[in-house]
């Protein structure tokens, strides 16, 4: 069990560090164990965007924090994909360039994991394989209308 925890930690950390660099175009990040004991170790996150000299996660911007979480998510799923992944408007804080980077990671994740995303953003919609529209033609009553396929092939 101890072995598996440390092995998973090392593997995820490796991908996390690479993905962060890719997503931010530089800088550095890493996961840190708070203890040698695998049964009680916690995980700290350090992240330093390119050019910036400090790694206090709280000082990062809304969009930067979202990208750190997305990089970690990608790392976790590259080691251990869950059967499905549900993301509700996680692109809310991202500018257009970063939404593009986010969708690239999402496409990669979706090769092994069924992804369900909710969004208001066109760039994210364009990355989808299938689109489901929800409406309330009758106020207060939800209905799923229209399904479109493979917009990205248009």
């Amino acid at each position, binding site marked *: 069990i101890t072995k*598996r*925890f440390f092995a*998973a*930690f090392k593997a*995820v950390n490796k991908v996390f560090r690479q993905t962060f660099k890719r997503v931010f175009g530089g800088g550095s990040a890493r996961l840190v164990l*708070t203890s040698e004991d695998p049964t*009680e*170790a*916690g*995980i*700290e*996150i350090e992240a330093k965007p390119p050019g910036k000299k400090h790694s206090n996660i709280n000082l990062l911007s*809304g969009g930067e*924090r*979202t990208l*750190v*979480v997305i990089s*970690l*998510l990608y790392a*976790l799923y590259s*080691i*251990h994909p*869950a*059967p*499905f*992944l*549900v*993301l*509700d*408007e*996680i692109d*809310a804080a991202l500018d257009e360039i970063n939404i593009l980077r986010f969708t690239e990671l*999402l496409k990669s994740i*979706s090769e092994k994991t*069924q*992804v*369900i*995303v*909710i*969004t*208001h953003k066109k760039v*994210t*919609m364009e*990355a*989808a*394989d*299938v*689109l*489901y*529209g*929800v*409406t*309330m033609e*009758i*106020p*207060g*009553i*939800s*209905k*799923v209308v229209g399904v479109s396929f493979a917009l990205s092939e248009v």
Partner: protein
Amino acid sequence: MHIKSLQLKGFKSFADETEIRFSKGINCIVGPNGCGKSNVVDALKWVTGDTSSRGMRATNMKDMVFKGAMGKRAARTSEVSITISRDELLPIKENEITVTRRIKSNGDSEFLINDRKVRLKDIQELFLSIGLGHKDYVFFEQGQIDRVLRLKPEERRVLIDDAA
């Protein structure tokens, strides 16, 4: 394994019977504010055995029952069914499992696996056995994307536990 379809009836704003057939790859749900998109997320959490009404923006599970709208009275029962396909290589009936969760407006709950009555615990164990670990690994709620960053280090480690 992946989700083949989700059916909602009387669940939150989905008063009428609704079926969503999910595809492999990236499924994208869109629509105006308040139309019911996040309610679909709540339905997925609920039918896979989540017990935190707070995580579904509710004060208790009875809030899952459609409360009524213009010209339509409140529902007596809320029901969500999820059909999952277990074997990617052989999409035949034997490899599909349908889980159903129901709650009445008086609070009575029912749980079914392939139409057979079971306990909530059995549903939770089923999803654990097919790879659904902690909810934090799979569900990322609206406005909570940086929740991972705000967790205590000891809480965050479950993500590595799930990855192990």
